[in-house]
């Protein structure tokens, strides 16, 4: 399936994957981050239940330096 992560098109072999699994695969879990799935913020407790399917859009954001 094809998904969009932070504006980049990403191809995955899986047909379905949870947000938890995706974050794990990018080693993001230990970093302070927030996930938006199809414009909806996903709570950390929901990572394992929320499924990503073909065509979904994800934003994985964090805090960076700013004034």
């Amino acid at each position, binding site marked *: 399936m094809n998904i969009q992560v932070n504006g980049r098109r990403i191809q995955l072999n899986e047909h379905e994957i949870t947000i938890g699994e995706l974050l794990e695969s*990018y080693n993001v879990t230990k970093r302070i981050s927030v996930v938006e799935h199809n414009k909806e913020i996903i709570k*950390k407790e929901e990572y394992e239940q929320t499924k990503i399917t073909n065509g979904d859009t994800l934003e994985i954001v964090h*805090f*960076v*330096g*700013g*004034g």
Partner: protein
Amino acid sequence: MLEIGNKTFRSRLMLGTGKYPSFDMQKRAVEVSETEILTFAVRRMDIFDEEEPNLLEELDLQKYSLLPNTAGAKTAEEAVRIARLAHASGLCNMIKVEVIGCDKTLLPDPFETMKASVQLLEEGFTVLTYTSDDVVLAKRLEEEGVHAIMPGASPIGSGQGIVNPMNLEFIIEQSSIPVIVDAGIGSPKDAAYAMELGADGILLNTAVSSAGHPVKMAEAMKLGVKAGRLSYEAGRIPKKIYASKSSPEIGMIK
């Protein structure tokens, strides 16, 4: 003590965390400044770079309150989206509403700023609104219930200092919520001046991060803010046109 929403702070200096020459220097500058509030921006994570240094992950979050901003937003809708993302981190409830209306001057869009502030107040955020030095807009924002008003001293990152002290004084005088002078501070004299005018605090970034010596400048800013505050509390003398002697006239040696 500075009170914003339900929090109190000893330091009246808030520091931005952008544009430092090095990560190490930034950490030292933050420490030396004795600030208790740090601003951050919300951006996409580079998920392909696990080693990307992140100040936040090295901070003792007991020591600092995070003030994420909505920088990058040009509409109320974008600002609200960023604020919600920041809040979902579970690390903060404060938000600096910043909605830019002009790319060249980085001056805020008053209409979108107002809209975003009202919406975020409804959602329970502690709202600190970055605004121009417009006196009436500041009043209107206060009436809507924002927790602090953050008028710019001059354009963001310009280092021009306080270009309109009169408007700042009007805003300070009318305001019953904290007034944090944000943007445009160039040197400690500007910070001290704003504090002498009665500002409750200063937020700055570039003046420290882009200084020749950011760590020294962080200390200088801390002292500038303190000096200005003390002066405000002490009450400066009124200005006079002519001189008045400091030494007594009686007992002169003839």
